[in-house]
């Protein structure tokens, strides 16, 4: 997925000299190709993320198309006010890329983990929020973002979980992508790293259809309602807080029309208490495969009632 991101920005910047890449002194290996190929379009803004976002806004006002890269804990969370005022209020075509979202920096602790970035960004008017789950979604997401001509936040989480699609795809605004059929009783909507988890659950015998949600805002409400109308319950899974994340978006949208149980699985309202591998932290937060399976089975047993619809 990271290679797809690198290729997407190199290809786009080669074709359009107005595209600039700004980084807050992060992305050492990730940007080797960009720096070598397009040194004049690469700006290391130093360890000063707030200024970097303001500078990107100024560049965009003067006709450039900046991509601002940082760790998700910094871009967008540390620089949220600059995103709101300098970029979104002016509706400037800036792409914000937050890398390492979720628990990716599992050994480094809370400062580098990012489990609130969706909640923070989705409330800002005019900001599109995207969360690709594999290399094909990354390609499609970047293409979508470059064509948008308005502010976008792209959340890149755990990037080595393999493909969830088998072929290249195109993304339309708010589109939810079906990645596995089911009997129709339960729909799992997952985003980013957790789409792979959802597929693994089904491979282990859980009866559910699986959808990937690469576009958190906007979210295609008609498509979502189509799913809600058919199934008995919806389960959402994300490597983000259950407060204000993708699951919250789904629940908010569905509840406008349906009395349908929506069960949100994600990081509960707490920080990581210890460090360890990414897999370890998933277990700590109950996001590993068996914990998620147990939660879903318990939920379905107690709540699944087709007559509730």
């Amino acid at each position, binding site marked *: 997925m990271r290679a797809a991101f690198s290729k997407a920005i190199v290809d786009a910047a080669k074709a359009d000299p107005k595209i600039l890449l700004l980084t807050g002194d992060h992305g050492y290996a990730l940007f080797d190709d960009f720096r070598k190929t397009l040194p004049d379009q690469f700006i290391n803004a130093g360890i*000063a993320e707030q200024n970097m976002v303001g500078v990107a806004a100024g560049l965009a*006002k003067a006709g450039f198309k900046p991509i601002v890269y940082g760790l998700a804990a910094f871009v967008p969370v540390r620089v949220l006010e600059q995103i709101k005022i300098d970029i979104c209020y*002016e509706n400037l075509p800036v792409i914000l890329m937050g890398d390492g979202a979720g628990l990716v920096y599992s050994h480094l602790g809370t400062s580098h983990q990012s489990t609130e970035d969706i909640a923070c960004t989705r409330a800002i008017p005019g900001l599109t929020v995207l969360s690709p789950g594999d290399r094909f979604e990354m390609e499609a997401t970047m293409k979508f973002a470059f064509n948008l001509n308005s502010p976008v936040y792209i959340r890149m989480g755990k990037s080595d979980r393999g493909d969830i699609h088998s072929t290249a795809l195109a993304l339309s605004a708010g589109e939810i992508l079906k990645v596995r059929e089911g009997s129709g009783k339960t729909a799992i909507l997952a985003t980013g790293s957790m789409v792979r988890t959802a597929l693994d659950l089904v491979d282990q015998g859980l009866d559910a259809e699986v959808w990937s949600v690469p576009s958190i805002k906007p979210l295609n409400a008609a498509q979502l309602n189509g799913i809600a109308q058919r199934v008995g319950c919806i389960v959402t899974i994300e490597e983000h807080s259950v407060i204000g994340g993708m699951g919250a978006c789904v629940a908010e949208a569905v509840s406008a029309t349906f009395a349908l149980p929506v069960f949100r699985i994600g990081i509960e309202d707490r920080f990581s208490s210890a460090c360890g591998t990414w897999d370890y932290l998933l277990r700590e937060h109950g996001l590993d495969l068996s914990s998620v399976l147990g939660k879903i089975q318990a939920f379905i047993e107690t709540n699944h009632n087709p007559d509730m619809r």
Partner: protein
Amino acid sequence: MSEFNSRQLRRTVLEMAYAGSTVHIGCAFSLIEILAVLYRNHLRYPGNDPQAVERDYLVLSKGHGVMGQYACLHEKGWLPKSELDNYFGDGSRLKGLSDGHVVGCEVTSGSLGHGLSVGVGMALAAKLAKTDQHCYAIVGDGEMNEGTMWEAMLFATHWSLDNLVVIVDENGFQAMGKTSEVMKLGSLQDKFSAFGFDTVSIDGHDERAIESALAQLKANKNGMPKAIVARTVKGKGVSFMEHQNIWHYTRLTEASFGAAMAELECAQ
């Protein structure tokens, strides 16, 4: 009467403030001469178009001085009198802080420490596009409390933005009191110089001094960003407002409006 006459600009500010019953009068009065000189002699707007692609940029990072800028935009012909008269009226698009949606205002500021970074970005854009555009950023001395200001200064020097002119409206006050009491700034001239800026310090109400500082600094195409530390008086131009921080917050009454206007009618 010359273009951008400072007494006329102050009268316009007073009329707006009285019409809208607004605050921030002292904050606007300290930067009137700076604005007058910039608009009269330096800011280039081809075709008198505030959105011309090749225009110079004026960033009012100290967004709470915006009434001074509105007065200048009115004189440029970009803001009708009717909008000034309806200042702060329901539905008015003129807000109490610089707003990028108002044509002629480059940034949305007021949350301090934003405008300079955006201005640095516009100056960098001009350098990358190899144009001769300048970016003038007016910042407050209180605003220099913000950490982003120093980030922006480092960046401007690193990228050799000698087309950036930062003008500090050093009126010695911030919201809660004197800058020397709230957060000691020391010598801003020394600090800008230490950060790699070509810096001069002047009387910010002496238009000839402002003009000569701008001319001198802009002639130095030496890769160094420019800074003018303009010593100013909060509330300048009306005797009972000068050096009185209360005019950051006070609204005009019929009596104080009349007294202030009378001083500005007869002052030379």
